[in-house]
């Protein structure tokens, strides 16, 4: 190396370094200009996602299947017709056949229009029903969300405050996440052609409001709270303390966070 070193070469090298350093601020300004052109985001809203941990709990024994939560969600988030960010399932378990010795018969699950308009009378006659109940469903806010892991472009992510969100500007609409979610909580939005899902009404919770479904639920079947900032007599804390709570499909290792009380073994 040293045998090739000439004065001319050294000066050239030095000039290159100085030139590079001089160009850096220009490059930074240039970068900022390019990114201002690309960015569409509004100013930050004084909300620190590291200081919250949102969670929803569902009380199956309180759900009356009115479907107002689904209606509220669809209106709040302009969910396109025929798609749902949250839905209600009706479980109907029939009586076991006489002398079969079984504890229960068959299980039927339905969710007409996601329960948005309430539920028509079940086709199974009342005398044959052993028991029946409603189960509201939504994004389970997984800790190790499979939908985030499969996203090839980093468009979906687990926000630090517990919400699993989709960056519409980055999503390429490949649909991997729709297939990956074991709870069926995602869909491809036919209007934006990007993945869509429950955002926990992110625009509401960051403003101090409850998610639309929780706000509208008449029977307090949905309970919402911030695990990091419990309020006085926190309803969520009371719910977890007073009920034997469960989560859906824990065996899959997705680490669902949404808690349910009063689940039957048939509910998946």
């Amino acid at each position: 190396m040293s045998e090739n070193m000439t004065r001319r070469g050294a000066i050239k090298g030095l000039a290159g370094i100085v030139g590079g350093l001089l160009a850096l601020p220009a490059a930074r300004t240039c970068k900022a200009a390019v990114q201002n052109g690309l960015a569409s985001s509004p100013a930050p809203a004084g909300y620190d996602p590291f200081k919250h941990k949102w969670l929803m709990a569902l009380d199956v024994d309180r759900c009356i299947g009115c479907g107002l939560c689904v209606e509220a969600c669809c209106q709040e988030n302009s969910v396109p017709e025929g798609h749902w960010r949250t839905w209600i399932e009706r479980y109907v378990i029939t009586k076991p056949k006489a002398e079969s010795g079984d504890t229960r018969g068959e299980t039927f699950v339905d969710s007409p229009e996601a329960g948005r308009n309430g539920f028509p009378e079940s086709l199974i006659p009342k005398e044959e029903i052993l028991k029946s109940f409603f189960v509201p469903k939504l994004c389970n806010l997984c800790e190790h969300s499979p939908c985030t892991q499969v996203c090839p472009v980093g468009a979906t992510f687990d926000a630090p405050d517990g919400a699993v969100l989709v960056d519409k500007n980055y999503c390429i609409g490949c649909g991997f996440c729709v297939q990956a979610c074991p709870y069926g909580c995602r869909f491809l939005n036919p209007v934006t052609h990007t993945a869509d899902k429950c955002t926990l009404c992110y625009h509401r919770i960051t403003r101090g409001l409850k998610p639309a479904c929780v706000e509208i639920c008449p029977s307090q079947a949905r309970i919402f709270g911030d695990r990091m900032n419990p309020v006085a007599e926190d309803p969520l804390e009371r719910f977890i303390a007073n009920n034997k709570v469960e989560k859906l499909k824990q065996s899959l290792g997705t680490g669902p966070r949404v808690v349910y009380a009063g689940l039957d073994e048939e509910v998946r």
Partner: protein
Amino acid sequence: MPRFLKMPPQIIRLVLLTIGIVCAYFTARYFLTPQSFGQYGHYRGDALQEIAARQPFWAGKAACVECHTDHAEKLAKGEHKTLSCETCHGPGEAHVKNPAEKLPKLDMTKLDMSLCVRCHAASPSKPKWLHQINPHNHYTGNVCTECHVPHQPNEVPP
């Protein structure tokens, strides 16, 4: 002459081309990666604010109670205390922003799935604690409010 310059020219061209492509990649990455990418994790931090920028559609009970304290107090005494105002009255965000814009008056004669019947129609799937009626043989008039006060269901109207 350094030894690497004695390599066959086609190899040198290939090496230069590779260096050029790598440089182009890093330059493009430097300019095109959004500033907020990686702020919280492997995603665009600004996306959080963009998602949060949406305007709420339902005002929330707290906004209603600010003005309508009398109704809220009455509601809090009865069994309908768990209901949000908007559960029955519909979205009120427009009314909160501009009080002159009134919410539509509820049509209590409707015995379809819109008001009382939506929740109180009997069904074997509904929990036992809920008061349920068969809308076809329960009522004698045609308006629920003839016998029940929606804000205070325990009370009988005068």
